[in-house]
């Protein structure tokens, strides 16, 4: 067993052969952050007093939901056979919405720990992340976690893993992130098996930006992995894509708090602070070089993540619109995946059409806007992007159902994904039935082991982002897992369902759905609104329509009585206070034609019944 390193190696003075860069990748909840905790403790960078569970999940929202959203890199010392090494560990998120975080982290590493819950076995994101790591040519160390669990079956899953990656079941390490068992040998294995970084120390510096974060106190903090050369404090650096130069105000490593250093050398991972205020000046994927001795060729960046679902965000109080804009601008600094542009809705006023990686991403952005910026928001029915071709050949790119054209549509195409479902074989029938309902196309099926299948489908994105996952889970008693990635477009029979209140179309409630599902959507939304909109002085018909064809209708009967019967001495104050409250409430009413619709009705009608937070696991 290795002792804790007696002294850590100083950054910028560490030979590359003493450096190991790795990330921990896994399916959601398989225990990456917990394993990282044990490593922080064993290597002594966090003492037991300061320790808390999932130490690297620093955001409130991560702690509340118990999931990792942002990757975190930490430098840790480790001694093996009398030699001290510097390990850079990156903990990554497991949820499919944040796959791009994993890709970025992989590019900073030579190796990856593929962690598998020994009670669950291989799941969909295990595969997805493994393939990503293989595309990046990383050395993979398979590790079974949670061996302390009574339900753990390490032997069984070691075989599955061996079959998947090649190698022998015995090569698979077995650990418990909870008890710490097996973690020291794992650290030793990392040193022994992972290749050291290589690079040209005398060449001009080339460092890849793999993360860029806005911090209120420090400005933009940029995370880099140095490939060639070195970066030193106080020198001037150049961002190769923009040619912009900045002075390095601070450079250092995270261990696990920022520690300024004398610089960063070949193979090292650390952070830079240049005083820029906008992360766009320090873009993820860009290459940093020395201003005095610039490199001629950059490292080749990352693809920007593409938003998959769109939703309108509107302040409940219209006067908060400027605050919302400012809040989005600030949040964008830390979240390259968030895109938005102003839009107006007849019913909701001024807001923004925002693009997200998935529903969890949407929910998290919305929650952060509400909490960190103190805003009350309405988010409209999420939708994917459609390309509409008109009879006259005109093309329209629709990110908001209200942009869906009225005229002669010849073709509508929608995004599709390549989805992978992993489940025990007994559920194959149930999964096929569900995918059928969701307009899926089976592309292939493999047995990973005797009782575990991998099913590959092409599915419309619009079918998968909403309640697909909940349904999959409930039909497989929680055993199935899902991963997906964009896979182009397909032409489909899609229509826009409009919702009309007293004959007036309410853009916020309309949706683009498959022809076969239009009726169900219309009935559902009309029914919901009937319960949510208070009775008015006149009758309010609610209709769902495709073009001029009405497919569902409901009626809100006119109110006949609202007067409070008795009104004596003590009732007067009560009644006046009620009136004052109602006057306040009036301000929260939106007028749709003559119909008063409370904001709450918008919120409730637009909230999807299954929230994305539940889609973890």
């Amino acid at each position: 067993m290795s002792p804790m390193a007696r002294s850590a190696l100083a950054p910028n003075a560490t030979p590359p052969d003493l450096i190991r860069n790795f990330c921990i990748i896994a399916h959601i909840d398989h225990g990456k952050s917990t394993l990282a905790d044990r490593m922080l403790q064993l290597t002594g960078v966090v003492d037991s007093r300061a320790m808390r569970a999932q130490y690297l999940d620093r955001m409130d929202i991560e702690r509340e939901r118990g999931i990792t959203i942002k990757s975190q890199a930490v430098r840790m010392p480790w001694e093996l056979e009398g030699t001290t090494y510097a390990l850079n560990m990156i903990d990554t998120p497991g949820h499919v919405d944040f796959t791009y975080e994993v890709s970025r982290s992989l590019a900073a590493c030579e190796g990856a720990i593929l962690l598998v819950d020994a009670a669950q076995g291989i799941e969909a994101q295990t595969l997805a992340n493994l393939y990503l790591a293989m595309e990046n040519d990383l050395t993979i160390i398979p590790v079974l976690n949670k061996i302390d669990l009574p339900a753990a079956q390490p032997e069984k899953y070691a075989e599955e893993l061996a079959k998947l990656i090649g190698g022998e079941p015995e090569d698979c390490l077995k650990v418990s992130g909870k008890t710490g068992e097996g973690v020291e040998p794992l650290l030793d294995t990392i040193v022994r098996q992972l290749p050291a970084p290589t690079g040209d120390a005398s060449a001009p510096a080339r460092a890849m930006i793999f993360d860029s974060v806005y911090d209120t106190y420090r400005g933009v903090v940029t995370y880099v992995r140095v490939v060639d050369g070195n970066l030193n404090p106080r020198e001037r650096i150049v961002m190769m894509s923009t040619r912009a130069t900045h002075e390095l105000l601070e450079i250092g490593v995270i261990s696990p708090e920022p520690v300024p250093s004398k610089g960063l050398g070949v193979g090292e991972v650390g952070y830079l602070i240049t005083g820029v205020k906008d992360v766009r000046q320090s873009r993820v994927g860009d290459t940093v070089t020395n201003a005095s001795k610039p490199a001629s060729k950059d490292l080749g960046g990352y693809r920007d993540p593409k938003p998959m679902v769109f939703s309108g965000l509107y302040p409940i109080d219209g006067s908060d619109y400027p605050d919302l804009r400012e809040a989005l601008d600030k949040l964008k600094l830390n979240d390259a995946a968030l895109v938005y542009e102003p839009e107006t809705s007849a019913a909701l006023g001024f807001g923004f059409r925002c693009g997200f990686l998935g529903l969890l991403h949407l929910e998290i952005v919305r929650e952060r806007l509400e909490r960190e910026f103190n805003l009350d928001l309405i988010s409209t029915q999420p939708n994917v992007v459609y390309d509409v071709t008109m009879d006259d050949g005109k093309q329209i790119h629709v990110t908001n159902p209200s942009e869906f054209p009225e005229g002669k549509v010849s073709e509508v195409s929608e995004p599709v994904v390549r989805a992978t479902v992993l489940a025990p074989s007994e559920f194959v029938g149930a999964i096929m039935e569900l995918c059928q309902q969701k307009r899926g196309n089976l592309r292939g099926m493999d047995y990973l082991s005797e009782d575990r299948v991998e099913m590959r489908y092409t599915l419309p994105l619009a079918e998968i982002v909403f309640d697909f996952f909940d349904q999959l889970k409930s039909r497989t008693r929680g055993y199935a897992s899902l991963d997906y990635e964009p896979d182009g477009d397909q032409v489909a029979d899609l229509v826009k369902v409009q919702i009309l209140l007293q004959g007036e179309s309410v853009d916020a409630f309309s949706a683009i759905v498959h022809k076969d599902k239009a009726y169900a959507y219309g009935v559902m939304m009309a029914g919901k609104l009937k319960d949510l909109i208070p009775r008015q002085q006149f009758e309010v018909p609610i209709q769902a329509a495709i073009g001029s064809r009405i497919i569902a209708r409901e009626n809100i009967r006119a109110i006949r009585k609202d007067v409070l019967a008795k009104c004596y001495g003590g009732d007067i104050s009560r009644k006046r206070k009620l009136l004052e409250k109602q006057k306040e409430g009036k301000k929260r009413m939106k007028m749709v034609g003559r119909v008063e619709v409370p904001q709450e009705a918008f919120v409730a009608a637009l909230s999807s019944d299954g929230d994305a937070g539940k889609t973890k696991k």
Partner: protein
Amino acid sequence: MPPSALPDGDPAPSTGELPPSALADVASTDLGIYVHVPFCTVRCGYCDFNTYTLTELGGPGASIGVDSYADAALLELDLACGVLGPAAPPVSTVFVGGGTPTMLRSRDLVTVLDGIRQRFGLAPDAEVTTEANPDSVTPESLRELADGGFTRVSVGMQSAVPHVLHTLERTHDPENVARAVAATKAAGMQVSVDLIYGTPGESLADWRRSLEAAVALEPDHVSAYALVVEEGTKLAAQVRRGVVPAPEDDDEADKYELADELLSAAGYGWYEVSNWARSQRARCRHNVAYWAGTNWWGVGPGAHSHVGGMRWWNVKHPSAYAARLGAGESPAHAREGLTDEQRYDERVLLGTRLADGLPVADLRGSGRTAVAGLIADGLVDGPAALRDSRLVLTLRGRLLADTVVHRLLAS
């Protein structure tokens, strides 16, 4: 009849003192006195009034009960007399409500009335009402009240249909009501009956039967209230658990229209949303004073008062109430001074409920602009507005009085 939920307010001084601004018009404003008697034999399932059974209060040894109530009330009258000062006019209306005032001996009710007379004097034509449960009065007790100066009795009839009375958990049967009404008349007092409609299980035919029974009693005055499911009551719990259905607005609207039809036909005219009277003289002047925003002092646990734009309310529990007065302190729990805007809101809120209507001239700009729309929507009587410059609700408008008030006050 204070509701049991007390609003928050500002602290009230222990002397009960009022700011000079509230007292400025005391001499020229009518003064009413409300006396709250917080006792009942049992609590009805729908009722959230500030009332207690004698067992709840701790039986005969309690610090305040039916026997000591009058003494405590007299102490508060002393306080009222001091606070309002010599400028206070003779009292024009007295209303004893509850709870069940007739759980006190008539002698005690008369003692309280005498107390008022001694301290303030009674106006020559003063209206003096007490509420009465049909079960707790006798010809003798009623005669004693009449002799002591009471002029009017309001009988809690509620319904004439046994299953409705049962659902309301009323202890009386329909015959008691007839007896109480007859005895009141025999004693030379005016009589009013209270009815409740919309009780779960009450059909439109049941309601018609209750109205016809009430009319047959030939009272001077009828109040008809839609049943309100008050939070915290047994009824509310039953509705929540689904044991009984919640009252339905449409059903209540039908019943209100039926009430107005039958009562009008029998010669009773509406003068407030829930009140009908046989003549101008038979209207309840004490209640009209509430709606007109004049001054009244509420005596008793939890009672509300209003003097010159200052509202306050007493501590609710009878023991706390008695303890305060015993210590020479005001029983006021909290109070609020109304802003101009609040006084205006109240004037509109209360004035629109009256058949005499709200002078259109009393409305501010945006309210006046709203009148045309209200007439167009059939909520406000057009001819009355044009002829008398008064805003009077139509039948449809009476049922939608809240909407009307909102539209008048929406700025």
